[in-house]
């Protein structure tokens, strides 16, 4: 069994690593990592903007964004992917590469989830910090940037990381619209071998686990470093911050 796994890796490591590249599009683990990194890097600022819009006093901003977040969160990701895959070319006539479709959908979907995490972090701070900032003459945006967000995001690191981990795992769904990622490569291998699905998908599981675990681990180190710097943290921010950073994924 272990020998099978080793043999598969020996035979197909390049396909699993970079897909058909350079004879075809970049795929495999490389593409999974690129898609994950881009999704996270784009979803994070999008989430902050969505959260601020949802907390805005202007209804014209708040209502549409609230609707977007509710709808996005209430629909399965797979359905959103299929929608954008089939509907966008139908409406616009544009030939959108499946990678871009997947990336956009993931950013919108995870951005909506993450925005609720960010919003919760802001609301949980209570009004005292904002009052203090306003009393000192800070504008709302300035207060958000220098006073509220640094605390809210820090307090929410565990939830934010869990959403990042979900994002990485959700890149596998690109398989259904032929995004050549690691899952796609693994299923190609499986199709060629036909008799060893367990071994092939075990490799797949171990690789995804390693990626997600590394991210969680790095996040824990970062969080511990900040906590040490603010040793003896107290006040409204403490209860959330002191919860041990065990990652619970909400979207399994």
């Amino acid at each position, binding site marked *: 069994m272990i020998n099978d796994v080793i043999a598969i890796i020996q035979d197909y490591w390049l396909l699993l690593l970079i897909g058909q590249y350079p004879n075809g599009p970049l795929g495999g683990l490389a593409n999974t990592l690129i898609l994950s990194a881009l999704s996270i890097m784009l979803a994070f600022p999008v989430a902050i903007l969505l959260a601020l819009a949802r907390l805005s006093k202007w209804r014209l901003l708040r209502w549409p964004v609230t609707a977007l977040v509710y709808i996005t969160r209430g629909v399965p990701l797979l359905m959103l992917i299929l929608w954008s895959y089939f509907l966008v070319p139908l409406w616009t006539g544009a030939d959108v590469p499946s990678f871009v479709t997947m990336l956009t959908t993931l950013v919108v979907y995870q951005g909506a989830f993450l925005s609720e995490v960010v919003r919760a972090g802001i609301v949980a701070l209570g009004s*005292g*910090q904002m*009052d*203090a900032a*306003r*009393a*000192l*003459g*800070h*504008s*709302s945006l*300035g207060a958000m940037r*220098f*006073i509220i967000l*640094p*605390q809210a995001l*820090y307090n929410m690191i565990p939830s934010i990381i869990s959403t990042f981990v979900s994002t990485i795992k959700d890149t596998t769904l690109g398989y259904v619209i032929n995004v050549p990622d690691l899952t796609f490569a693994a299923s190609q291998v499986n199709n060629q071998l036909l008799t060893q699905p367990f071994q092939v998908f075990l490799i797949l599981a171990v690789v995804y686990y390693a990626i997600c675990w590394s991210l969680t681990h790095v996040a824990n180190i970062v969080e511990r470093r900040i906590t040490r*710097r*603010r*040793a*003896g*943290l*107290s*006040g*409204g*921010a*403490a209860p959330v911050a002191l919860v041990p950073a065990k990652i619970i994924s909400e979207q399994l």
Partner: protein
Amino acid sequence: MSTSAAWTQQLQTIHLSDVCKSYGDYPVLKNIDAEVARGEVVVICGPSGSGKSTLIRTINRLEEINSGSITLDGQNIHAAMRTRELNLLRSRIGFVFQNFNLFPHLSVVENVAMSPIRVKGVAANVAHEKALKLLDRVGLADKARAYPGQLSGGQQQRVAIARALAMEPPVMLFDEPTSALDPEMVGEVLAVMKSLASEGMTMICVTHEMGFARDVADRIWFIDAGQILETAPPDEFFKTPRHPRAQRFLADLRH
């Protein structure tokens, strides 16, 4: 404008005129008329739920009012204005909170220096130097690098006072600054407030520290059910309160 009007205008810093505020149907402030002269120390006292905190929070517009006006040196704080203008106005009114509300992610010196840098555009090294001076003044120069979570309540509140002073406000408002403190720390905060008062700072304090009121206040405003029932110098207020509600309040305090 007549000369006498100009003279009072110069003397008065804050003027509240017919200020009303309600939460839904429930009135919290009813027709408040009052003024605070430059350099004057006013202590607001009254039973809990009487509207003291709401009143002081309307003065820098942390709370909106339903009608009336509040002016600082002739400028109506509650007029329709651009947010930038309001922020500027707010930066001229120092505010000290019951729960300190220090920024826990910043060190003590950053707490004090940050707002001059971000709001007024003061150069960072100038702001830090000044922050250290202010911290020295409240007796906390050695804590500059500490984080708020490492300080006692009394120390945090002194940092909060230094943070407010860093904006060089002509007026300071205190909303029950000692109510969240352990008894042994009340003194150190009151000492800072006393020294501020002796330097001629215009101050409005909501407090239950009647000793402070007696020693430092120029005038007491006694407030109950959203109305100022009595304003008097402390000697007069504590010895011969005129309003029956004030008499009852002071009698209850002595128990």
